[in-house]
């Protein structure tokens, strides 16, 4: 039966995370935006303690028998990410945990790899797992990756440069974490030659060249990594060793995105919601009514704008929950995940940009968080598949086209 009510467990989770977001993120939101490369250790430690012992923050991970009837892993993740991003999207991304790198292992790793790489997130000090795909010369076109992986005895030797790696520096230098590096074992083979390799913290030959200065999500460190003859053990190639002979490596990791796209969409929605709530309160204080039920032609311009904004947010959230729900049910959701991400990224951009406009000089001022939310929002239209890439994916799916037929 169609049902739009969160389960009690999801509601409890939502309340708990919301409480944490309100108490521990909002008060320091502006500070960590201004102090771009200061690591918010207090917040990180607190959230690490709070999420210990659960796989709650692991996107993807196909439901298993132990998960019990109708597991809600991805849906609850979307709910909790929305709350955290409502708090502060940059601080959310700075949180320790399996993250995108862990999601890749969960999606494509062998059982042995999952145990070897994921168990660390259940105890001890905070750890990060990052994903390094983008290079100076290629972002959307991940089949054009130039970083190489050459087999040498018992090792893979990696060479190349990666940019825009969220938490790359924390994964390698600030914790016992790892980075999942996409590299090609055969440049001439295009997509088929691309595999994912796990580079553990402390591995010689990988260094953090710099941390980016960004428009928003400044509390989240974004690293440039340089790999120079970086040697990793043979069994650090994600998936079985046979993977070098098939296109499975690339496809397997790409499948991660079916799980992480709803998660990114949820983050966008959190920022959008923060903005809308603030705007609603402000309009109320100013005595500007929002009247549902009168003809559109009688709505004040601000009313009409506000209604459009809140509808966009609801639409984005419903698409996101659908995609997450499908993941939880094991229903292939490539189309729906991309729909959600495309809609949410665009919606939050539109919502936050319009909010700054409506709030006039106050919206523009750094004395309010609204301008920061606009800056934080924009990345959601870009990372984890740009708006345009997600639209391409949707288009391919609705036509039944391959990437060669529609590019």
């Amino acid at each position, binding site marked *: 039966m169609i049902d739009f009510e969160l389960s009690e467990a999801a509601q409890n989770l939502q309340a708990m995370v919301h409480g944490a977001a309100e108490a521990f993120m909002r008060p320091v939101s502006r500070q960590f935006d201004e102090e771009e490369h200061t690591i918010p250790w207090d917040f990180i430690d607190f959230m690490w303690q709070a999420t210990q012992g659960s796989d709650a923050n692991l996107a993807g991970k196909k439901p298993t028998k132990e998960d019990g009837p109708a597991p809600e892993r991805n849906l609850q993740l979307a709910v909790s990410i929305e709350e955290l991003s409502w708090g502060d999207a940059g601080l959310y991304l700075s949180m320790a945990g399996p993250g995108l790198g862990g999601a890749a292992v969960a999606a494509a790793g062998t059982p042995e790899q999952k145990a070897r790489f994921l168990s660390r997130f259940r105890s001890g000090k905070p750890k990060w797992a990052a994903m390094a795909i983008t290079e100076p010369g290629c972002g959307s076109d991940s089949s054009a990756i130039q970083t190489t992986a050459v087999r040498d005895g018992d090792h893979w030797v990696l060479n190349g440069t990666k940019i825009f790696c969220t938490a790359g520096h924390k994964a390698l230098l600030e914790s016992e974490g790892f980075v999942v590096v996409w590299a090609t074992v055969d440049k001439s083979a295009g997509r088929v030659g691309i595999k994912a390799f796990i580079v553990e913290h402390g591995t010689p030959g990988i260094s953090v060249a710099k941390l980016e200065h960004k428009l928003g999500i400044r509390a989240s460190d974004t690293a440039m990594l340089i790999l120079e003859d970086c040697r990793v053990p043979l069994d650090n190639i994600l998936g079985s060793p046979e993977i070098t002979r098939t296109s499975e490596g690339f496809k397997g990791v790409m499948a991660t995105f079916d799980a992480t796209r709803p998660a990114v969409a949820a983050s966008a929605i959190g920022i959008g919601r923060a903005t809308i709530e603030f705007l609603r309160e402000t309009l109320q204080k100013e005595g500007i009514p929002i009247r549902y039920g009168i003809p559109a032609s009688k709505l004040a311009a601000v009313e009409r704008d506000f209604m459009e904004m809140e509808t966009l947010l609801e639409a984005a959230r419903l698409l996101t929950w659908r995609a997450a729900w499908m993941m939880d049910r094991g229903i292939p959701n490539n189309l729906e995940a991309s729909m959600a991400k495309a809609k949410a990224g665009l919606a939050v951009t539109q919502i936050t940009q319009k909010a700054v406009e409506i709030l006039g000089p106050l919206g523009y001022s750094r004395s309010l968080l609204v301008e920061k939310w606009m800056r934080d929002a924009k990345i959601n239209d870009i990372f984890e598949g740009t708006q345009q890439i997600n639209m391409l994916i949707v288009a391919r799916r609705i*036509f039944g086209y391959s990437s060669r037929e529609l590019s």
Partner: protein
Amino acid sequence: MISFELSEDQKLLQETVAAFAIEQIRPLARDADERGEAPESVVAKAWELGLVAGAIPESYGGFGDARSALTGAIVLEELGYGDLSIALHVLAPRLLVYPLLEHGTEDQKKRFLPAFTQAEFRAATAAVVEPSLHFDLSALTTTAIAEKNGFVLRGRKAFVPLADGSETVLVYARHADRPRSENPAEGYRAVGAFLVERGAPGLEIGPPEKNMGIKALRSHELTLSDVRVGAECRLGGDRGIDFARLMNCSRVALGALAVGVARAAFDYARDYAKERRAFGVAIAQKQAIAFMLAEMAIEIDATRLLVWKAAWKLDRGEDATREAYLAKHYAANMALKVTDNAVQVLGGHGYIRDHLVELWLRNARGFASFEGMAIV
């Protein structure tokens, strides 16, 4: 807990109505639009599906199905997918039946419902919209003045489907004795519904309206010049009606129909784009076209979910005004955009009446003005 899965019954109903819409309704759409009316044959066949009698309790001769706004939305999307005009025609009797089911006194139900459980289609309708650009559900200009044994109705209505064939029209009017208010909710609370018989003195049914779209739906203006009705004609008796809720049902219904129309246009344009070749490839392989269609697909799915959420709230007995109002607006805008894009994808061919996309565009633009369709 969150779920996006239809029940088995809903799936079955959806399949049945979808098949009917594609096989029986759609092939007639163009001709019906050109002629300005729905063929009786399809109206009769739709009647047999039980679209009106379904929700009438067995004690009045109906099937006694539970009414659900969400299930209604599912059914209406499929009917809209077939053809909007024909859909509105076959659903028109609900305009009387559903408010009766919701609010009618026992007497009123006994008097009116059984006629809609017979073998033949029976027309009925309701009058809500007023022919003015100031038209406002929260400030109706049609009034009901209380007098000794009943009410006097005065005003003008538009978009009244099948008025010229209905024995009874349910006329919505503002109780004149209620004070005017800035608060829209007060305006809704001031509205009552009145069972008016055809031939009532003072009731004038205008000729069939000429609209840009919904041309196969015979709709009319009504003029009420001091039409007198007895107290027993006030729907719900002294308790009256919940006009706000009925209008939320209407918003859900119109939203669902809009999704159906948009989906029809999308499917058609998508298939066309895969066939039509230009510059050596199918035009679907060109990003400009592909992105248009991708956006259309996303917006259709998003709108459906917004409509379903409003319907779900209605079914839970909650106030769904915000959700229904926002969903209906979104749906009206979405349907226009999608159908407009569909015409665009077909290019010059989209402009010619050989293809249905131009019809869908003409129909879709109407959703901005359509109101008062409490048919879920």
